[in-house]
């Protein structure tokens, strides 16, 4: 639509300082496409007004948090408006003794953790790049790092959610209590929906006590199998696992384990872990932790990052298969069956992506392109083959966003 008309309409909703046009839009580009405008609403009511406007005018909207995960997804088919939620950064409600809280979507995960630390609490979220990653973005992408083994996934810890629907209506699901089965659990639907169903503006979480002790150890293994066995054994024996992953950048496979909890449990776990690792041929080592970079490199959109999901027991085979494709960096969460591999300078990214997809398929899993240059996305659906329940997902999308204004083209099947 005409730039002047759009700007005038947006200025009815937000102040001039919260409307971005022109050069400022470069930082809101998605797969090389720039929107016509970006807005930075400061309240849920403003988000609602923006969405009502988008609904009326047929504007394609892509919600933004810290932007760390914006490389995930297909190329947008339309993109008029970037909806930057970072000014929605208020802690709405926190009664420490309840071990729950409600927070707006735009607060970064790191800032929330800092606000909770004086109370000896933490929010059980562990996305990569938490200083940039927002609560809303973490939920929308269901981002979970190596602490998933102790924290669970974003879906498991979100007890309530408030969203602005595609037409501007504000709705909520769940509540503020830790146990609740009133109505459909739409929180689950929004978590991981990648900005395609509604705009997440607020969420409530269960909290955890902040561990009193943390110790990190790394063990180098000559092959992925014993490293996987050590990880599984540590879990089976209830060691005080805070986080756990495997890192590979050529050479040995490094199992990185953070033990957390009370001192006695951490001490006991340290010795048990060392014994398990040694028994399987692992050697204590130092490590430069690079799991975030392996998952997603927001600062460097070049190259290719693949995410492979397989049965946990197939992780060693998956890592061996990946090694043959010579990524520069691989990280795996062995208990979950999730592996990330990164090729920063992929010469033939399409061929590599297809090989990684074939590898996953041979292991009865799936591979998706987690990040790559836009050119490759034009060639293939980054999410790979459609799942058998795709028709239901599509029906969900059609109900929630009948005009197709929310992140159009970005999700599975590019619809």
């Amino acid at each position, binding site marked *: 639509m005409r730039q002047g008309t759009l700007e005038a309409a947006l200025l009815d909703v937000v102040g001039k300082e919260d409307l971005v046009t022109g050069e400022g839009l470069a930082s809101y580009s998605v797969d090389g496409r720039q929107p016509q405008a970006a807005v930075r609403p400061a309240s849920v009511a403003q988000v609602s007004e923006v969405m009502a406007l988008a609904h009326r005018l047929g504007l394609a909207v892509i919600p933004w948090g810290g932007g760390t995960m914006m490389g995930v997804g297909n190329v947008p088919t339309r993109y008029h408006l970037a909806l930057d939620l970072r000014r929605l950064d208020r802690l709405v409600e926190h009664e420490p003794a309840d071990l729950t809280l409600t927070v707006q979507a735009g607060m970064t995960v790191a800032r929330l953790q800092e606000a909770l630390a004086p109370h000896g609490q933490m929010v059980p979220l562990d996305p990569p790049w938490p200083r940039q990653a927002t609560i809303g973005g973490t939920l929308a992408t269901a981002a979970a790092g190596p602490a998933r083994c102790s924290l669970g996934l974003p879906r498991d810890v979100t007890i309530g959610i408030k969203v602005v629907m595609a037409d501007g209506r504000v709705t909520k699901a769940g509540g*503020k209590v830790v146990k609740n089965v*009133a109505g459909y*659990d739409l929180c*689950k639907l929004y978590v*991981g929906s990648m900005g395609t169903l509604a705009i997440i503006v607020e969420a409530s979480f269960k909290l955890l006590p902040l561990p009193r002790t943390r110790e990190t150890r790394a063990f180098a293994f000559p092959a992925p199998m014993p490293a996987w066995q050590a990880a599984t054994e540590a879990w*089976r024996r*209830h060691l005080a696992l805070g986080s756990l992953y495997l890192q590979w950048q050529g050479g040995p496979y490094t199992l990185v384990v953070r033990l957390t909890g009370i001192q006695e449990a951490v001490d006991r776990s340290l010795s048990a872990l060392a014994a398990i690792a040694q028994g399987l041929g692992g050697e204590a080592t130092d490590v430069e932790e690079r799991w975030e970079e392996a998952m997603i490199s927001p600062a460097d959109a070049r190259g290719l990052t693949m995410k492979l999901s397989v049965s*946990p027991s197939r992780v060693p085979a998956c890592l061996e298969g990946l090694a043959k494709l010579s990524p520069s960096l691989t990280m795996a969460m062995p208990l*979950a069956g999730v592996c990330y591999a990164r090729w920063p300078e992929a010469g033939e990214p399409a061929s590599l992506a297809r090989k990684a997809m074939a590898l996953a398929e041979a292991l009865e899993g799936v591979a998706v392109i987690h990040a790559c240059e836009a050119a490759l996305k034009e060639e293939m659906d980054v999410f790979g083959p459609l799942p058998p329940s795709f028709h239901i997902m599509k*029906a969900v999308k059609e109900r929630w966003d009948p005009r197709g204004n929310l992140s159009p083209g970005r999700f599975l099947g590019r619809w």
Partner: protein
Amino acid sequence: MNPKLRRELERVVGPPWVLAHPAELLTYEYDATIERALPDAVVLPGSAQEVAAVVQVARRFRVPVVARGAGTGLSGGAVPYGGGIVVVTSRLNRILKIDPENAIAVVEPGVLNLDVSRAAAPYGLRFAPDPSSQKACTIGGNIAENAGGPHCLRYGTTTNHVLALEMVTAEGQLVWLGSPWGEAPGYDLVGAVVGSEGTLGIVTKAVLRLLPLPPAIITLLAIFDTVEQASEAVSAIIAHGIVPAALEMLDRAVMEAVEPYIHAGYPPDAGAVLLVEVEGLEEAAEAEAQAVRGVCQELGAREVHMGFTPEERERLWAGRKAALGALGRLAPSYYILDGVVPRTKLPHVVRQVYEICQSYGLRVAHVLHAGDGNLHPNILFDEQEPGAVERVLRCGADIIRACVEAGGSITGEHGVGYEKRDFMPWIFTPHDLEAMRQLKDAFGAGDFFNPHKIFPEEQQETSMVPQRPAIRHAGPDAYV
């Protein structure tokens, strides 16, 4: 029943597995609530394909379908209001796989909850959700209701332990949702289906996450003179950042009912007890147990017992899990409530529960998944007494209202079902409910699966009091 429909159903599952004689149907007209509704037919399919074919037939004849597990539900979820075909999952009771390497179980919906843990135990694994009915209730029912249980305080409810589902849709198609490994791309449809009370489809297989059995379990019994002290101790434990595996509370009336019947080891002269369990690595469990003990003593516990033998522990839990059945000793009928409040509000709301009951002249026996803020007051009464039922229902509604006013919810684990449909607007706006209806539409379910559940209906038939289903005659087959 339409003889044509009957013939079609018989063709699908075989004549022995279609029940249509009134005497046979009686068994399937109720669940663990008292309200009854007679199905038009009961079908017991033997495979997922048969479930799909039954759904196709029902669709063609425009007859609604209600899935049923063991019938232990507490919100009328399996009661076929308005008739229809009840699909019973009891023949779909195979554990298809225990995969210890990947810590998963693949089961059919009619498998009993406890049987999953029993089958996993030789591998050092278990299925964490442990509703009190776990010896009787089915995985299919657990999934429909997102069942909880004492130990979900630490480990989460059913929804946190289901990885993938095979489901029959309203079109009668079998479809897999989710993924048994890693992360499946796309919307989390498994998360949407778990807890949808049988309204979106019929689950025919489930991939469940298993967890390792803990090396150490320490059980504590903290004895308090008053309910106030006990509920303040619960709030304080949580406020200290201690999240035990289980944190249950029983009041005097419950113990009075349980003790003569189970001899569980509860002190019948106490005002309330906390039954607490901590588990994990020996050192962690020990430290947590000491911390719990410290908080309880600080808040005036008369005694805190630890060091139970496995047999004693078993009896304490048997007493807890049979609490509901034992209430029959106290009164001819009781009304089971299920509300949740933020945990700091527990002392306040627990006090309110007694006050509200007193104002109605009713006695209450209260058992709580206290650590979760999940209350189960049981209002004791005699149904034969004129006007009693209405009084009990008003009292129950007041209690749930108090939970909502404290920032809580109308149900923590029993489901909305038929019972609490009309309470939904207390916590959800018309827009919120509309979004939920959208999901039902997306599954193409309309009012085909389990109609009249969850959503408030405009036309309330005067003969049916909405919460009536949760009132039952006391019996040993009910669990809370």
